[in-house]
């Protein structure tokens, strides 16, 4: 048993940089072991990941495209987590958020394009928030655990969307379960178009101006959670509900607002996917990004400054990972789902595994330096 360390003496960079780095390294070592069990060389896999995500301009653009999605879902999980709510329904909220984007884009196409964009973003937020509202309401009033209700709402969202895509809003001229495309002028400007402005000719990649929206969302979350009265109240409820009630803060109100903000952020994934990439609703477009958001948020210690690099790291894993699945027949994209699980395990549940040892090591070292 390591000796207990006085928390105030631990330098910030030890608990916020060194410890997460050690945890991440452990997760990646175990991941390497899994790749070995699957019959491939983990070192070759790392080389492929780095080449796939940085080796050429389109690959890097793909990395940033994935980063965009993970920033949205990571922020979504983090906001709810500050209120001690486990919103693992990002997947369903993003799916329904996409419905909001599509309905606005298709029905308001007579308006000027920038206004349609703003309205579509609002549609994503409102629909995502609405899908989070029922679990939030049940948690606040009936104590129904959001982990179960949000998971159920993921299943319900998937059924509902497949129903809509097959029977209601399907593009009847096509075979697959997807809708018609939104008008072409509403497509978000793509990275390829920007590069063309500077005379660079590159191939297609899904990176689009939603990336800027992800940056805006990060600032918004930082401001909301740490700089407003509501953010303070929400964190107070999350930290100690009884004390918050005693201070006159309503946990009921804060649970609902936190979940709705969280759902709205997850809904923004629909903006990237529909205005930026598919230009229509495709069945199953959230493709697990909602779950990855959990790993991103926990790795980024639920702060936008941490979430952005964590999302970038997962972008590398995703884009590099698809390079790996291309070249290594034994590795499928599910291997990288397992890697996410390991990262959640080591940087979330097992975050205290070596923390006492690491912290006391650095505190003792600093103490010796002061004495010397």
């Amino acid at each position, binding site marked *: 048993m390591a000796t207990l360390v006085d928390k105030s003496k631990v330098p910030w960079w030890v608990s916020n940089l060194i410890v997460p780095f050690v945890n991440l390294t452990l997760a990646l070592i175990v991941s390497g072991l899994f790749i070995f069990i699957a019959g491939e060389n983990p070192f070759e896999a790392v080389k492929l990941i780095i080449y796939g995500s940085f080796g050429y301009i389109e690959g890097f653009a793909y990395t940033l495209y994935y980063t965009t999605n993970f920033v949205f879902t990571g922020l979504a999980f983090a906001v709810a987590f500050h209120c001690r709510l486990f919103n693992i329904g990002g997947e369903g909220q993003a799916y329904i958020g996409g419905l909001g984007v599509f309905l606005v884009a298709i029905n308001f196409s007579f308006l000027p394009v920038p206004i349609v964009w703003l309205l579509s973003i609002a549609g994503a937020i409102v629909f995502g928030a609405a899908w989070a509202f029922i679990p939030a309401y049940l948690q606040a009033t009936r104590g*129904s655990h959001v982990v179960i209700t949000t998971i159920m709402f993921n299943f319900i969202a998937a059924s509902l969307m497949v129903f809509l895509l097959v029977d209601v809003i399907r593009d009847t001229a096509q075979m697959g379960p997807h809708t018609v495309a939104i008008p072409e002028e509403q497509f978000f400007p793509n990275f390829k178009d920007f590069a063309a402005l500077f005379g660079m000719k590159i191939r297609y990649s899904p990176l689009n101006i939603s990336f800027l929206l992800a940056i805006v969302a990060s600032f918004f979350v930082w401001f909301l959670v740490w700089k407003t009265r509501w953010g303070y109240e929400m964190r107070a409820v999350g930290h100690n509900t009884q004390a918050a009630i005693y201070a006159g803060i309503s946990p009921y109100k804060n649970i609902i607002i936190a979940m709705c903000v969280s759902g709205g952020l997850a809904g923004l994934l629909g903006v990237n996917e529909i205005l930026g990439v598919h230009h229509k609703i495709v069945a199953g477009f959230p493709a697990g990004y909602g779950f990855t958001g959990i790993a991103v948020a926990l790795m980024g210690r639920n702060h936008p400054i941490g979430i952005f690099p964590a999302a970038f790291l997962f972008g590398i894993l995703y884009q590099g990972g698809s390079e790996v699945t291309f070249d290594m027949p034994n590795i499928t994209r599910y291997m990288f789902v*397992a890697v996410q699980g390991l990262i959640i395990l080591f940087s979330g549940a097992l975050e205290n595994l070596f923390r006492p040892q690491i912290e006391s090591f650095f505190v003792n070292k600093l103490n010796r330096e002061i004495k010397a």
Partner: protein
Amino acid sequence: MEFLSDIASLINSTLRISTPLVFAAMAGIFAERSGVIDFSLEGKMLMAAFVAAVGSYFLGNPWLGLFLAIVACVSLSMLHGFASVTHKGDQVVSCVAINILIIGLTTALAAAWFGQAGLTPTLNEDQRFLEITLPFADSLRDVAIIGTIYSDILSGHYIFVYLAYLSVPLVFWVVFKTSFGLRLRAVGENPSAVDTAGINVFAMRYKALAINGVLIAFAGAHLSTAVNANFFREMSAGRGYLALAAMIFGKWHPKTALIACLLFGFTDALQIRLQGVELPAIGTIPVQLIQAIPYVLTVVLLAGFVGKAIAPNAIGQPYIKER
């Protein structure tokens, strides 16, 4: 008569469909009564399904597959305990990690070893559990009512179905009638009092998690080596969460949890029957909406139309021993 046989087959499928839920709910009762949240039932069930199918395929014996599944699930339970009991990590985060890890790992390994997009090879008759025909089931079939109940409802199930319903009184006895059960419940309600009485809180929680691992392994093996003859991607399909909801709805009590599991099983059996059936006044309900019924029911039950569920007092809190 056709109506009667419809009812009989509906009850028969209810018993079969509820089986993994019953095992999972009983597993959940052990973990949560000891004060450890277990959302990882879903992941463990999936792991058991994978290990049982792969083990049985390579070793040629479903019992060996089941044994390996038990080993795998107990190991995962120990991992959960290591993170949340020993290292006092967040219990829900630990469960979410296990669930995501297992979804990825099982599918990735199935693809790597068998190259069939997350499927394991189909098991032959020697490698899987077969339906058991109870004695005299065939000769009693024509006897009115008794024949229907005995031959069409009770007979012809996989061994796991019988084991699941036998496990309920057993769990009840262990949890409520033995000194082990008393300690188990006390650890979940007031761990410091139990500690004062000289009982090791950590050891109790690990024991509860070990039993939890054994029980949930049966649920997974039922899915991949009995009702199905192989493992496929995400085959647990939310059953771990449904079982947990049933357990909460049953107020952490085996008997009421069993009723909730049967209710889920019945809804699911009904859901399968209703697909494509023309209903009076409503017409045909789209299949996607019918499939969502068990999930909607879960939310409705959790919303607690029968009063608020009171969890064990110390649930979710790591025990910190005073020095």
